């Protein structure tokens, strides 16, 4: 899992069946000092995160497990938490 910030969202004109009806967010990966550390990813939202929220996300097939353990979904990353505090800045 990683820390990230929601920087936007995506609306699609057409989607494969395994992605239908999901809200797609653009999230920029951050490190524990909230410095960008990777290219922004598109991921599905499970916790009603909004633009500007500091979140944590899960990648890989675990992202699809966030939705009632289903394995037929075309999801490889998912927002699983909205962060309220990071106590690791001085590490």
């Amino acid at each position, binding site marked *: *899992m*990683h*820390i990230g910030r929601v920087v936007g969202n995506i609306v699609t004109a057409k989607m494969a069946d395994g992605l239908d009806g999901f809200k797609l967010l653009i999230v920029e990966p951050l*490190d*524990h000092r909230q410095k960008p*550390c*990777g290219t922004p990813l598109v991921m599905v939202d*499970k*916790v*009603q995160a909004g633009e500007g929220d500091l979140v*944590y996300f*899960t*990648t*890989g097939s*675990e*992202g*699809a*497990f*966030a939705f009632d*353990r289903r394995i037929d979904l075309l999801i490889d990353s*998912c927002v*699983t*938490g*909205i*962060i*309220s*505090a*990071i*106590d*690791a*800045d001085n*590490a």
Partner: protein
Amino acid sequence: MIICKILGPVTAAVKHDDYQGRAVFAVQEYNGGILHGHSFLALDCIGAGAGDIVMVNKEGGSSRIACGHSEACVHSTITALVDTIRSKE
């Protein structure tokens, strides 16, 4: 598994059920007293704390099983507290 140092806790007001009741820590790969790469998050399964040197299952089924559910939406878990490291490398 990889050896990491725990940088500190990351608390979330809203989170998926698989994270309820467990601590999430920012961790970073640790080798020869130096931190390497970028920090990432891991779910604590053994009661570790900030500053501890631990072993992390970074991905795969074993890290999901470590937190008690083979299909949990958890990618990395802290599975051991390191006491001593003896390595020629």
